[in-house]
């Protein structure tokens, strides 16, 4: 019978002495449409339970699905970005199985005719090379509701007394993107898996079709792994690891499964085809409930929805609107802004590239835009414990601050106060300038008056300056700056002091 080796899995290097790994990655992406796939309920994460539900997404008797046109467009855009072909005639199918979080007890999906198929993604690897991942298909489907397991240990399914169901997520549009078997990656298989999901995430983010938040479940990866003995070309039995919730976990899960498979196989056991769950804490996988019978989903064409026949014009219009691929854009930006590799990497790692680019698009010079985001704003984000994109300031607002400095309305120091005001919710930069009274005092007569006042207040220093000790002017400049609460241009004040003492 099946031997199970759960201890000391082999390293990938050891695995690859004996086997070639084969991977298949299935990524589910929730689209960020305004409404669900088949009804007009809001597609919104984190709402009060069962407040975004209607007869359709609750599967009430008599209700009928209605396809979301934007979701179809997103699916086509994703396909085009992944170099896929768009099927001339596709349609929906029902995938039948019973599960309490699925209100109709079938999922509307696509079966033999996914809307897009046969593509590829050239994935950048850490060493600067690329790896081509072939895409089998991408198809549309709907998400399930969510269950909360009550009783037993910490909300886990096992040992729970009962469950509570929230159908807000039921019917949220999903695109499932399936790779062809990834063969030949050898010891780099775990890295390729991570790099693929990373590249896919970046492409999807660039398209603007999804929030692609693995932590919130808007992007989910299932990793199929099998091993074939070196020198053969017959795939081994695969396992499907679910619940892989971060990019790092994708890599770890593949590495763990490779090692585990090798352990089982090398000790004479055989791999059971099953679903496994990845545990973030331990970095290991464990088997799901064994399937009592082979899953027969009894797919058949969804009779409630007419077929899709995207016209050539429609597809070409969507193709023309596709953004650059993220890494191509990165290369272009690096050249245009004159960044070193390290500067670029820092921007990417800080999740700041899009923010800086948008700031530049809003009119700021690249250097100022970059400097704001990587220094002062990064400090503020760190202090607030949020990510840079979550900071309550937009690229347009940053660009406006940069412009105010450039036109002399703000000094750099004042500009930081304006940014603080924006972050504190005091409105647009101009509102903060007005509200806090932060503009540079550029009224010459007011400045002159302030200088005269300071000279009068410190006659001994005024005397020194008149005597030619120009260094003493610093004390008067300081007094003027203090009097104007920093809103004067210090260099101009210096000039005025010397002028008045001539």
């Amino acid at each position, binding site marked *: 019978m099946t031997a199970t080796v759960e201890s000391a899995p082999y390293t990938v290097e050891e695995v690859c002495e004996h086997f070639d790994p084969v991977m298949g990655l299935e990524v589910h992406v929730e689209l960020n*449409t305004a409404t669900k796939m088949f009804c007009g309920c809001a597609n919104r994460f984190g709402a009060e339970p069962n407040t975004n539900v209607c007869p359709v997404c609750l599967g009430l008797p008599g209700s009928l699905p209605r396809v979301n046109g934007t979701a179809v467009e997103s699916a086509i855009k994703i396909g085009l970005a992944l170099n896929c072909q768009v099927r001339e005639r596709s349609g929906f199918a029902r995938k039948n199985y019973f599960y309490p979080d699925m209100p109709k007890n079938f999922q509307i999906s696509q079966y033999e005719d996914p809307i897009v198929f046969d593509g590829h993604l050239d994935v950048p690897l850490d060493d600067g090379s690329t790896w081509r991942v072939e895409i089998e298909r991408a198809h549309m489907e709907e998400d399930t509701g969510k269950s909360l397991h009550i009783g037993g240990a910490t909300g886990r399914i096992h040992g729970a007394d*009962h469950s509570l169901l929230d159908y807000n997520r039921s019917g949220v549009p999903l695109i499932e993107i399936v790779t062809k078997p990834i063969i030949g990656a050898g010891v780099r298989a775990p890295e390729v898996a991570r790099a693929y999901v990373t590249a896919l995430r970046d492409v999807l983010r660039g398209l603007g079709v999804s929030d692609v938040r693995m932590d919130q479940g808007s992007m989910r990866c299932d990793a199929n792994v099998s091993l074939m003995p070196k020198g053969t070309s017959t795939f081994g039995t695969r396992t499907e690891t679910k619940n892989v919730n971060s990019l790092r976990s994708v890599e770890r899960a593949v590495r763990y499964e490779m090692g585990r498979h090798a352990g089982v196989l090398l000790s004479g056991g055989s791999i059971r085809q099953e679903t496994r769950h990845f545990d973030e804490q331990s970095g290991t996988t464990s088997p799901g409930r064994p399937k009592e019978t082979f899953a027969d989903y009894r797919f058949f064409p969804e009779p409630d*929805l007419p077929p899709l026949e995207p016209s050539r014009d429609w597809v070409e219009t969507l193709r023309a609107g596709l953004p650059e691929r993220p890494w191509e854009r990165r290369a272009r930006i690096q050249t245009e802004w004159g960044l070193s590799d390290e500067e670029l990497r820092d921007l990417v790692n800080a999740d700041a590239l899009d923010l800086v680019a948008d700031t530049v698009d809003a009119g700021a010079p690249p250097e100022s835009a970059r400097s704001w985001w990587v220094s002062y704003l990064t400090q503020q984000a760190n202090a607030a414990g949020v990510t840079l994109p979550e900071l309550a300031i937009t690229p347009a607002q940053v660009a406006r601050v940069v412009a105010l400095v450039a036109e002399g309305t703000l000094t750099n120091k004042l500009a930081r106060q304006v940014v603080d005001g924006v972050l504190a919710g005091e409105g647009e930069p101009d509102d903060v300038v007005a509200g806090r009274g932060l503009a540079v005092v550029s009224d010459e007569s007011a400045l002159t008056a302030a200088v005269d006042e300071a000279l009068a207040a410190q006659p001994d220093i005024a005397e020194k300056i008149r005597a030619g000790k120009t260094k003493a002017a610093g004390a008067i400049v300081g007094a003027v700056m203090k009097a104007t609460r920093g809103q004067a241009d210090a260099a101009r004040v210096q000039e005025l002091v010397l002028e008045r003492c001539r």
Partner: protein
Amino acid sequence: MSDITRDDVAHLARLARLAVSDAELDVFSGQIDAIVDTVSKVGEIPDDVPPTAQVVPQTNVLRPDETEPSLPRDVALAGAPAAEEGRFRVPRILGEEL
């Protein structure tokens, strides 16, 4: 003859979530076998005939991505056999999807 056995019907009942009794199995297996035998007449049709899944003349029927009112939560839950904390309460769930 089709060859639907009692075991086949028991399997179908499990797939369809029907806790049929032994007595029902006896009756159903005979009836279903006879019905499947009759309807198997479609097997005479040549394979090269294209299928018709539906008779709707139109394609690309799409809805604009605009929100519409959802049900008030109390209405959504009104028909539930049991509800708790704004959610549908159901018996414990075993494992993941079948």
